């Protein structure tokens, strides 16, 4: 919260989703506050640029449902892990992402994410964040067992082969 405007207020203001009285309050403040005015200008320019780039990407790339789903799942996984988007993923993280992508096609985004978490909880790692190369195999075994229920023996085998280092 800065100058009585929190992050959510800014977000809704820039998206044009604020109620009129709240919008008027922020605009009245911006008129008199150089720092907030500069921030608003920067955010507006950034939003405009993002829209342009987004539109250009839309025109140049047509994503399949599976690609879109895998991309969203990746973003979601990064947010959940609190990972810096700029930091390169570790080999374990990469493998987890691949496994989630494989399972998403068969049993859906949410079930795939739940399967990874459940397998981690049932393995010595105890949580997805604690899965390492050292405790990878028991984790993968648990995940394959879950995949067996969801997708059958072939699906479980696929998960096992996809997850193997």
């Amino acid at each position, binding site marked *: 919260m800065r100058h009585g405007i929190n992050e959510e207020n800014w977000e809704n203001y820039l998206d044009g989703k604020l109620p009129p009285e709240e919008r008027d309050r922020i605009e009245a403040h911006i008129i008199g506050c150089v720092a907030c005015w500069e921030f608003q200008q920067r955010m507006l320019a950034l939003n405009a640029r993002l829209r342009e780039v987004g539109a250009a990407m839309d025109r140049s790339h047509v994503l399949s*449902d599976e690609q879109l*789903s895998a991309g969203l799942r990746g973003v979601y996984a990064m947010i959940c892990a609190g990972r810096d988007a700029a930091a390169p993923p570790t080999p374990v993280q990469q493998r987890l992402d691949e496994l989630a992508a*494989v399972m*998403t*096609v*068969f*049993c*859906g*985004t*949410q*079930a*795939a994410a*739940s*399967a990874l978490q*459940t397998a981690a909880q*049932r393995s010595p790692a105890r949580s997805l964040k604690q899965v390492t190369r050292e405790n990878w195999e028991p984790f993968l075994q648990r995940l394959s067992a*879950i995949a*067996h*229920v*969801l*997708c*059958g*023996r*072939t*699906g*479980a*085998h*696929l998960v096992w*082969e*996809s997850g193997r280092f």
Partner: protein
Amino acid sequence: MEALRITPRLVLIGLTAHLALRLSFILPVGFGQADKHETALDAIRITGALAAYGLALLICRRLADEYREAKWMRLAWLALTVNAALSFIRPLVRSPLPLPGQEIDLYSAPPIYGLLHHLALTPANLFLLLGLLAMWWAYREAGLGFKFQRRDGAALGGLFLLMLVFFYYKDLLTEAQALYRATSILQLVAQVQLFLIAAAGLLLHRISVQMGNGRLAVVLRWLTLYALARLALVLSVSLLRAAWPQHERLITDVADFGWQAAPWLFSLAVVHQAELTALAAERLAHIKQQRAAKRTVPV
């Protein structure tokens, strides 16, 4: 698994062809007059049901093998296999092939066919119910956090109320006044089973919604549709017949489109599941191929 190559698209073509063929015989004489082409329509009905359930039977058995290490899922697919097998013989005992032209409407068919029909129907329904429940239980046991929600409780409560209302009007059932007491009891049992099957279908639907997307959700949605469609048909046909008894033949002719489409819905669920396995096998082969290629690259 050669049966895996039967795609959902092919099943949809089968369904469309079946209904279109039926329509082509009914349209010239008009709805309500289908008995004029009884023999041909009987043949279409029996062939369609045999094709749909035969296909499902073939694939279900293989799917049970696919789940041999997952106890509840194996049980589920074995139960669905038995359901498919019993459903496969059901059209034959309802109106035997050596007697084409036999009246198929249970209001006027010889009483023994009503009994035979329900003797096959009741265990088939039981195995279908067991299959759906075992499947639901397997997904719950997997511990993926599929939750029973308040609205599911409301839906099941609604179904239960509907069942009570249905019991009140049970005399509307086609076999309520059957010559054999066993027939009317079996028909009543079959209707209760349909309510329970619909309830199990709703549970699976909740899981499919919680999965988000993916091919497995599609399988569950077709199974749900199959479970609900039959109950919806029983209820709507009973009510319509009671409300407009003078249009009984018309209602039967129209409702038979739904009844004859139902086996194909089951086939679609099964074929979608088989497609899922086929896709997994393809991807597995691809990964193995890639691994093998890496191993053979000279260092």
